């Protein structure tokens, strides 16, 4: 911590949020300078984006399969199984896709960002960069933040596509919903602006910024001990999950 933390837990959390906000401003200011390290940003997109594809696709597939299974049985009560594709698409585009991807992203990429930067801090690599007149905000923090911002929406799209594939497998191939009605009901119900742009894109960009900010911030401000790194990693997951779900509610209320 850069300053004395107050004892009161409320004050301490407030101080954390304030520090995080100031850190966001510093990172945003460092982004133009980080463009000279563009290769580093590309490497981070590869590491936190492309390498997360497997978990995102597998999870998306299973989420789609279980959604189709559950919805089919509920909808069959009303004789509305033809709406399976439509309900899966709407719930995934609007809520599940961005939220689940962000939670997975926090677990898969957020923790590794925190641990990596935390270890850099603990082993004085960040202090060494400052000694060599390399701005650690521009070389370490900003590329990871940017990479998270870019990777999140792309991962969310892949997640949604995998979900549709999963629900199609279960709904059409296993439970026998008609292939044509599955797609045509979905196409009539899903709206480009409210579902794809407001749902998938807006939410995932906001979540991507939030998760990578928290991960970089926790790593950057961790106490330089092995215990401190462990706590910072845990805090990344806890804080990101709460922030994702709270922001999701606010964004939904705001965008609807």
């Amino acid at each position, binding site marked *: 911590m850069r300053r004395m933390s107050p004892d009161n837990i409320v004050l301490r959390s407030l101080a954390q949020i304030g520090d995080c906000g100031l850190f966001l401003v510093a990172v945003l200011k460092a982004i133009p300078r980080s463009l000279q390290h563009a290769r580093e940003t590309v490497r981070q997109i590869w590491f936190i984006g492309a390498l997360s594809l497997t978990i995102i696709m597998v999870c998306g597939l299973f989420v789609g399969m279980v959604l189709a299974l559950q919805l089919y049985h509920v909808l069959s009560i009303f004789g509305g199984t033809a709406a399976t594709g439509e309900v899966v698409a709407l719930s995934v585009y609007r809520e599940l896709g961005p939220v689940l991807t962000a939670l997975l992203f926090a677990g898969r990429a957020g923790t590794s960002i925190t641990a990596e930067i935390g270890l850099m801090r603990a082993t004085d690599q960040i202090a060494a960069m400052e000694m060599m007149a390399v701005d650690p905000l521009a070389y370490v923090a900003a590329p990871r933040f940017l990479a998270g911002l870019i990777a999140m929406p792309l991962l969310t799209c892949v997640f949604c596509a995998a979900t549709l594939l999963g629900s199609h497998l279960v709904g059409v191939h296993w439970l026998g919903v008609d292939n044509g009605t599955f797609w045509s009901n979905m196409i009539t119900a899903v709206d480009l602006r409210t579902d794809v742009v407001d749902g*998938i894109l807006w939410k995932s960009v906001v979540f991507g910024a939030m998760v990578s900010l928290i991960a970089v911030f926790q790593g950057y401000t961790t106490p330089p001990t092995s215990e401190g790194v462990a706590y910072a990693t845990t805090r990344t997951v806890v804080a990101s999950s709460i922030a994702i779900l709270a922001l999701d509610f606010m964004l939904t209320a705001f965008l609807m």
Partner: protein
Amino acid sequence: MTQRRSYAVGTGLFIVLGFATLAYLATQTTSVANVRLGATYTVDAQFANIGQLKERAPVKVAGVRIGQVKSIALEPGKEVADVKLAIDQHYDAIPDDSVATIFTSGLLGDQYVGIQFGSSKKAVADGGSLALTRPAQQLEEMLGKFFGAGGAADNLGGTYTVKARFTNVGALSVGAPVKMAGVAIGSVQSVQADPVKLDAYVTLAIDKRYSQIPDDSAAAVFTSGLIGTQYVAIQPGGSPDMLKNGDELVLTQSAMQLEDLIGKFLVNGSSSGDKKADGAPSNASPAGKQ
């Protein structure tokens, strides 16, 4: 160097894959036609009742989508809904005496505007109107005396309040819409039981824009659809005086329970049969009396 190039290529592949899936989701799983608004022209149609028609609902000819509903508003001072249809420029040969009808896809499906061609040689132009319309067919109307449904209440600006008494409000709750000709014009402000008269005392907040409602209008508690929520429908009367803030609607019709309605339907059917038998003693009753 080779390692660096491998992750750069991988990252490029990842980004291309991401954008490809986004393009797929955006074009193959959505109704892109809903936002394609470039080449359309607007046609007016006035309906006595729009039912549950919503903005962006499809406009169809022979079941094929040719456009969408652009806006729905209540004609000021009249009990008609003014619906603007945005129709694709390709379909510019719609005869100006065509009939616009509000249909429902299936029993519980969404509503849409269907256009049946007339025989006129003249095509309806941009900004023109279809004079011949048929309102939404309500299931309730066929069953009994219900009518009107659809849409959420407007975002209300200024409102004035009107009171109404009902012997039974059914499941009417605070915030339920108040509708005229199927268009929401206000909301229910409070529902209270009168401790003296032992009936329900309902306060309606009506948008100031709709200040031209005759003071002998009737209020009725209706249900939207078979299993929908309840709302208050206002049927305008013919009085030259308009409703003012604080007035009370004298003519009211209480909520009808579906069970009651079906019961009445069944009972009425058999009792009218009895009456007919009484009225025609030559055929049936002699045999009955013996």
